[in-house]
């Protein structure tokens, strides 16, 4: 099972890299991991951190999984998530602020899905009709979404007479309920889990799922069978964009720390659209594997947040504690980066047999 080995190897390398860096802060890496792990799962604030990472990552990576299965490289979940957040805010603040929650909340999710899809539409169309590389276009769309967000928050939607540029708070009935004692907005969690199961059924038991796999594996064979690659490109892009849009709705309406759009789009999206790429890849594009990979990555991210506050209990001196707290998120970033690198490199290397030969350098 080369696949399992690749994953285990990638995780191991990431841990080793991170341990070396932690050692530079003169802390024991094992203490750090233990603290991260037990506080994330054993405390209510730890569970909040965990849930707030898990929900958007699961939603975004579910969509990306479908796209990646068709070898459609949607790198735009970040922007699609922001568009979902913007659309939900717009609906709750300007379109139907008076509507009761049972109407408003479903409408916000639907609009968020559509907005995410819409943001993926242009790259999808360009790829389907003109074969324009979707990696570039979806990535560029992220920047446009961020600037649109900035414009709205600093311009027309800015709450008047307030120091920081931000929108009004969403009306109370638009705010999603949370699991008591935590920040986990369970409606979005339920949608995310439901989406994983729907995608699993789709990939394994439906015609469209078969077509997605076929186009991803061999577009020529798909063409011969009369499957339209264009249709599959459109479908997977719009679906992955829509699911990222749902994550954006959850971020603005669900996360109790938000409930409005802030001066910086990074506060809402926090790079989760990119991290979801790692989650999808780590699952080996297996829908049920997403639960494990999303949980694992969330644990690392939550651990980073925990490390920020817990560093004084771990580090030997206040100086190193402060340094560790400042570097906590970057450490997790390095961990994730190293892991993705190993996963992608491992993907390539598993196709080769390594042989040792004596003498002579080959050339081709």
């Amino acid at each position: 099972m080369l696949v399992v080995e690749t994953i285990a190897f990638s995780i191991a390398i990431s841990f080793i890299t991170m341990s070396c860096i932690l050692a530079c802060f003169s802390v024991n890496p094992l203490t750090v991991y233990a603290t991260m792990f037990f506080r994330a799962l054993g405390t209510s604030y730890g569970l909040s951190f965990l849930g707030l990472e898990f929900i958007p990552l699961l939603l975004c990576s579910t969509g990306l999984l479908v796209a990646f299965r068709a070898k459609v490289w949607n790198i735009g979940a970040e922007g699609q998530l922001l568009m979902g957040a913007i659309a939900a805010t717009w609906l709750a603040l300007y379109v139907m602020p008076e509507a009761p929650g049972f109407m408003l909340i479903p409408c916000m999710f639907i609009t968020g899905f559509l907005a995410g899809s819409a943001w993926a539409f242009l790259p999808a169309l360009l790829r389907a009709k003109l074969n324009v590389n979707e990696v570039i276009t979806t990535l560029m769309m992220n920047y446009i979404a961020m600037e649109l967000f900035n414009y709205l928050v600093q311009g027309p939607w800015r709450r008047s007479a307030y120091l920081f540029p931000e929108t009004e708070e969403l009306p109370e009935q638009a705010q999603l309920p949370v699991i008591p004692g935590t920040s986990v907005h369970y409606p979005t969690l339920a949608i995310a889990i439901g989406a994983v199961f729907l995608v699993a059924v789709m990939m394994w038991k439906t015609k469209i799922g078969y077509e997605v796999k076929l186009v991803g594996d061999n577009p020529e064979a798909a063409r011969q069978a009369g499957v339209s690659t264009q249709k599959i490109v459109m479908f997977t892009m719009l679906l992955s964009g829509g699911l990222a849009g749902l994550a954006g709705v959850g971020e603005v309406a669900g996360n109790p720390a938000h409930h409005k759009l802030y001066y910086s789009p990074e506060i809402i999206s926090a790079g989760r659209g990119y991290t979801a790429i790692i989650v999808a890849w780590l699952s080996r594009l297996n829908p049920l594997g997403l639960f494990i990979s999303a949980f694992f990555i969330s644990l690392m991210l939550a651990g980073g947040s925990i490390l920020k506050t817990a560093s004084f209990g771990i580090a030997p001196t206040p100086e190193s504690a402060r340094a560790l707290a400042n570097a906590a998120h970057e450490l997790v970033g390095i961990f994730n980066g190293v892991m993705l690198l190993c996963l992608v490199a491992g993907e390539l290397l598993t196709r080769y047999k390594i042989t040792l030969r004596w003498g002579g350098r080959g050339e081709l």
Partner: protein
Amino acid sequence: MLVKMVGITKRFPSVIANYKVDFELRAGEIHALLGENGAGKTTLMNILYGLYRPDEGRIFFEGREVKIRSPKDAIRLGIGMIHQHFRLVPSLTVAENVALGLGEAKFFMPAKSVEDRIVALSERYGLKIDPDAKIWQLSVGERQRVEILKALIRDIKVLILDEPTTVLTPGERDQLFKVMRKLADEGKGIVFITHKLGEVKAVSDRVTVLRRGRVVASGLDAKRVSVLELARLMVGEKFEFGLKERKPVAFREVVLDVKGLAVRDDKGLLAVKDVSFELRAGEILGIAGVAGNGQRELVEALVGLRKPEKGSIKIMGVEVAGKGPRDILELGVAFIPEDRVGMGIAPGLSVEENLILKCYHRPPFSKGPFLDLRFISEWSRKLVDEYGIMTPSLKTPVGVLSGGNIQRLILARELSMKPRLIVASHPTYGLDVAASEYIRSLLIEQRNKGAAVLLVSEDLEEIMALSDKIAVMYDGRIVGDVMETSGVDIHKLGLMMSGAWEGG
């Protein structure tokens, strides 16, 4: 003697590519290596160039025995090879590519110093080329010149050209021949791999013929041997009729009716020019011809993968020119593509998923949006047994199966649809004898059941053994008329295939 290869044997899994092959090359000669596809010509030369190592046999270079472990060794000895597929970097210039090939590329590209040498060489041999042009801007013929320059700049003694003319226009070909002759006159030894008889006569001094990995004629004088004799040597005289009997079929409606068909290739050139023929139920029509004469484009147009430029294709009386692949397969058209792995299967998907490729979209394989997985499993199990597909399980990715099993899977899938028309493109290419025989029997069985079969193949023995009628394609047209197999002799076919046939 410049090069002497003695008793070379090379085995690949399930195929013996070369068996006790002897080959000699003299300085100052153009030596043609003739044979059909899969005869082992390229393998033999890849061994000389160090890309493969022989299982048995010895190589002598200028009289002393050498071990060639890699192309680097070959280059050191002074052996150059121009492959069928060029090894150039499209975004770099001619000079940069040549410099890269020199292997002297250190940190700074020595392109400038190489440029003068390129200009000198191209003037000396009449290889017109602009050293500053980027590769992607060049025509195929020009790219080939760059490859030749890459070899010449190293002061080689032996130049191997692997089917160099397939990609060339007739004008470019004549120019290439001139360059080859000039090189030979300077005392270099040229190996010219080809399967075109006319070209052997046109340019080479001696010829060695390979058939199924063995030498059947060694170092013949090309001026004295006739094209007819070469054809006979290349394809062999013995035919194996150990196949199923072709029974007469009573009711013979026209299944496929092609009129005035013209199709363009990927480059936009007319690859099929005004082709017309009829194919009836219970009949196998063999399309013979050297690859690259429009067969691929013809086949792709028939199954809907390529839009015809003009003309009509009627299948069961329905006009299908310009229709999509699914419309056409719904009419009962099975397709066995020439590029088995590239087109015929999805290698990462399972045996089951590959078997339903052409039928997943309709009941009983699916209901509404859902696939009926249980039915698919049962049905796949039956096909796997019936066609003897060797696979560890139905969930195994098809890419790990052997070539013969992949072909069985494709046939199982296509024939299970009870097709009325089977378009088979090189169905036994690269398969071992047993698998080939099995696949030929299946085609005959389908014919006896009343299917119409269009068989495209380069293997004349296969065409002769299977077909009721034969047409030869050359340069996008059918040479002469469609012929009854009984009235055809193989030498005439060889001539028609080589384009040397003048009618009569």
